[in-house]
């Protein structure tokens, strides 16, 4: 089993994802350069956080045209699991793999601090290790994380259970103060229709060791790995 972490020019959480996968989860991971045209037989793909192309124009707008993205789109179409974190989420939206867009934070300032998330759907391949309603704590660090989509899209997301994480307070309530960026419906992470592409603004890879203050992000990676082990073809 192998997970590819894509490095775009300006990615800066690629290494953190890689270390979380290899050192903490204990799964094989490798970097893929944005100019690569192959995913190298990866079983899952992570688009990490950072500032691809400096976030110039719009976050993710230039990275989505990177050569490797063609492969990522194909991979996703074939049902391969793709996880986009922060800038990775923005790229997924720009690439049309997820609906909607991420606008500038409502308060106009970069937001870097821990947030609480409520697991809204624990039946996805990324969240099977959590309980529905469980409250997680992990950092955010972004300037453009204000999720926006038209009303119709939002109600479809709601209806299909594709809102995977919502910003809440420590008690699990969606109070206005708990929403750090103005996201519609307190959205922190969403799933595509088939359920194999997840985009989220918070950083689970920064919450995988006690010494970092939280291990609540670990579940996303272990859920994914469990899913991959369960679906892996028997070794021939």
């Amino acid at each position, binding site marked *: 089993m192998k997970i590819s972490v894509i490095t775009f020019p300006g990615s800066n959480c690629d290494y953190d994802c890689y270390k979380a996968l290899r050192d903490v989860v204990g799964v094989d991971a490798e970097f893929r350069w944005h100019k690569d045209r192959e995913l190298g037989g990866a079983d899952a793909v992570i688009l990490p956080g950072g500032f691809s192309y400096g976030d110039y124009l719009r976050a993710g707008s230039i990275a989505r045209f990177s050569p490797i993205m063609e492969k990522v789109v194909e991979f996703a179409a074939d049902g391969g699991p793709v996880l986009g974190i922060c800038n990775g989420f923005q790229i997924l939206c720009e690439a049309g793999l997820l609906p909607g867009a991420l606008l500038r934070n409502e308060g106009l300032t970069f937001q870097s601090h821990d947030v609480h998330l409520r697991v809204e759907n624990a039946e996805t391949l990324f969240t099977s290790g959590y309980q529905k309603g469980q409250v997680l704590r992990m950092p955010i660090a972004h300037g453009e994380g204000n999720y*926006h989509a038209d009303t119709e899209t939002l109600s479809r997301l709601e209806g299909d259970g594709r809102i995977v994480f919502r910003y809440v307070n420590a008690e699990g309530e969606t109070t206005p103060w708990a929403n750090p960026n103005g996201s519609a419906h307190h959205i922190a992470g969403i799933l595509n229709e088939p359920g194999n592409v997840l985009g989220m603004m918070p950083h689970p890879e920064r919450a995988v060791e006690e010494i970092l203050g939280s291990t609540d992000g670990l579940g996303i990676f272990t859920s994914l790995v469990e899913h991959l082990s369960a679906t892996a073809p028997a070794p021939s």
Partner: protein
Amino acid sequence: MSRHRVEVLIRPRPGLLDPEGKAIHHALASLGFQGVEEVRGGKSVSLEVEAKDPAEARERAEEMCRKLLANPVMEDYEIQMAGDDVPEGA
């Protein structure tokens, strides 16, 4: 072929929250500018486009907007070329 200067204005779609516009509005008011309304913040990109005539340059710029410069989920764009009239209610 000749070069044509194109100015692309990119604005948040109407109805979309525009915190930047709000902040500018607020700052103008606190500087004493009264009677200012409908403040919207946006982006602009200016470029020179090689094309056989202005019409073709505009068409190419349109395509750039559709492909890259604007995100239709959140933005509208307007293309201006030298000699255009600035429209009334863009």
